[in-house]
């Protein structure tokens, strides 16, 4: 079970920044139609910085743990800094190599961020936007 290293399991069991924020400045949900995974991101923005975030949703250990890890990274960043995050950044963050199917699990949280925060409708995992 190499894929599920200690950090992944730890974030899966105790996800950071979990729970919807109301009111909030950004509120967006995406689904992975392949497996029904669902992830919602709420963000409070102050002075153009990501001041608070709250995740909710359900899914596999990879999608949930990655959301938790990504949340820690973007917290405190400016919106523009967070926008620069790429697929490679996320994969470096979780430190595992994944096949094409599980890649979608890992990148669901990035997709929520890209589409929700930046309106990049139709953003795909292989986009460089």
């Amino acid at each position, binding site marked *: *079970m190499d894929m599920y290293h200690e950090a992944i*399991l730890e974030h899966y069991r105790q996800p950071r920044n979990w729970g919807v924020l109301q009111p909030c400045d950004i509120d967006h949900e995406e689904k992975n139609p*392949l*497996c*029904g995974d*669902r992830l919602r991101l709420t963000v409070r923005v102050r002075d153009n910085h990501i001041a608070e975030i709250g995740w909710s949703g*359900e899914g*596999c*250990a990879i999608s949930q743990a990655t959301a938790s890890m990504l949340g820690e990274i973007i917290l405190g960043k400016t919106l523009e800094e967070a926008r620069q995050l790429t697929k490679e950044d996320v994969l470096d963050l979780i430190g595992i190599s994944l096949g094409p199917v599980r890649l979608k699990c890992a990148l669901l949280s990035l997709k929520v961020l890209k589409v929700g925060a930046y309106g990049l409708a139709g953003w795909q995992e292989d986009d460089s936007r």
Partner: protein
Amino acid sequence: MSALSLEQLTRQMAAHRADFPILAQMVRPNVPLVYLDNAATTQKPTAVLRAVEDYYTHMNANVHRGVHSFSEKATAAYEAARDAVRDFVGATSAREIIFTRNATEAINLVAYAWGLANLRIGDQILVSEMEHHANIVPWQMVAERAGAHVLPIPITEDGQIDQDAYQTLLGSGRVRMVALAHVSNVLGTINPLADLIRMAHEVGALVTVDGAQSAPHMPIDVRALDADFFALSGHKLCAPTGIGALYGKRALLEAMPPFMGGGSMIDRVTFAKTTYADLPQRFEAGTPNISGAVGLGAAIAYLRGIGLEAIHAHEVALIQHTMAGLADIEGVQMYGPSADQRAGLVSFTLRGVHAHDLSAGLDQAGIAVRAGHHCAMPLHEKFGIAASTRVSFYLYNTLEEADHFVQTVAAVQRFFAR
């Protein structure tokens, strides 16, 4: 067969494992493949692989065209495969067998060719809630164009068609077509097709049967069922991918316009008017999958050599054994009928472990299963789950594999325990 205990039968079946070269493969060093994803696709025996190779080595040519020796050989092989399918499903005439890419294309053929010619505004198509997307979406697409409506036939909590609700729906007087799975790819339910079809016929509706999950596993008799159309996929019954078949009653097929246009399907072409070929060529535009058809013929011969009754009994033994094992794991929820009333597959959820994580865990032990919604999103929605894990057996699976599977499910649950 009745003289054999189920235990003896499953032991006997294990002898056929040697016919499937892939079953000797390792998923990774020292981890043999335990293939339990047979409802998705099945493995291919040497007899099928050889038949395809033999076709390309000794007789490859286009069919129904050339007046030369190899074209005649290829045509004979292709038509022999059609006759094998005819006999396999119990049809009267080989003209009633149309080769397609798969069951999906077979259903699309009926939906478009029959549907666009016959459906009128306000007509109804009934589709059971347990259908695979392949027997839902084509009907929706055609209904939208025809102004017709697709209505779901409810199922009961234990995964059976709700026959009272079905009877009520049929009473509208507007139902023209009923789309039904023979065996559910998620629930394993074996639908009482003969009864359901009789009820449809009583109100003048036709029935299209999705036989993708039944034809590989049990004897099929389209005449005894009185099915109007019956679709199957070759790759789910030991044949190559890319070949399937549609059975249709001759009078219905003869009255239908073509599905696709091209070579082979014409009688005479002029720019003023084209007339179409007779059955079955009318529905087989372009060069068909000849080698696939030959492979399908070989697969049917292989399966009949073992016996479809024996295959079904073997799979029932495996699923009963597996479901008894799963029932002992706390937090397992299985969907569909009880073990004595289903085909050889079961879908389930495991509390605390997502289907993808369970599938990844099983894969570490070399076990291949399906995780997700199995192309049946409405059904998963009905049960209020996003995804499930499905284990599905075929003739080459063993009781040892079933035990290994159950033990690994329990181990994965312990791994993810929070």
